């Protein structure tokens, strides 16, 4: 059983390495955001498999924290790309844009 878990962990590490390659090369910003988000997801899975191999339950808490932080960071980065600002809540921003008639398309 340990060996199976280990092979799964190795596979996840390989997937993480592929994501890293996209993160280094990624021609556009959106490639990089997607790669970073997916890398975070893989880290969560890797930690869970790791906790199974090492027999430590406390790594699961860290994995949950990662999942939350990954989500928040992705939202922050995308919001930054879209609005060039982190100051105002998303809903407020689209409202303001709609009022000022700045909506394109």
């Amino acid at each position, binding site marked *: 059983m340990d060996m199976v878990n280990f092979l799964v962990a*190795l596979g996840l590490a390989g997937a993480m390495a592929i994501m890293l390659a996209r*993160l280094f090369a990624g021609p556009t910003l959106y490639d990089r955001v997607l790669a970073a988000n997916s890398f975070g997801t893989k880290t969560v899975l890797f930690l869970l498999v790791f906790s199974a191999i*090492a027999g430590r339950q406390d790594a699961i808490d860290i994995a949950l924290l990662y999942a939350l*932080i990954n989500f928040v960071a992705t939202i922050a980065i995308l919001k930054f790309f*879209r609005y060039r600002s*982190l100051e105002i809540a998303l809903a407020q921003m689209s409202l303001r844009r709609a009022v000022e008639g700045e909506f394109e398309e």
Partner: protein
Amino acid sequence: MTGADLTQFLDYTLIAMLLAVAFAIVRLRNLFAVVMLTGVYSLLSAAWFVSLDAVDVAFTEAAVGAGISTVLMLGAMLLTARECEPAGAGRHWLALAVVSVAGIALLFAIPDLPVYGDPNSPANAYVGAAYLERTPNEISVPNVVTAVLASYRGYDTFGEVVVIFTAALGVILLLGFGNGRRDRTKPGKTGQEEDQA
């Protein structure tokens, strides 16, 4: 192979990825990519801390390194440039010499370090053993690190919190969170047009 061997192998994988990310951070000129890579770097190092059984450090690293500092870096980038200036043509031989000497000195220091997980190492032997022994009786907190941080060294932690609060105030003053800056510079279409381009 036992579980310890397997986790050690996974440690090496994590460290190899850490190295690759560090080199990429040094080489890349696109600051957005660098900010994202620093987030990835601290995720990886936090995973490594978990495998070293330092769960509390990993918790802090994940929350501060991957979460808050990514957002802060993005906020700082609002005030500065999006691309790094190209490095000067000259090579800094003096800096290279200093770094090489320091690196060699560190390599020489490695054999003096205690073996990983050594129960007789100074960190585990004297004060650490006393804390492990006393905490269940004196403070009914199952996690010894929490007991040390919040109770035995409570004043120290309080001082740290004051320092962090002051630092946060300074950062907020510098980056200008709030609506003041927005009203000065008209909320123009610059961001949108750059996106579309």
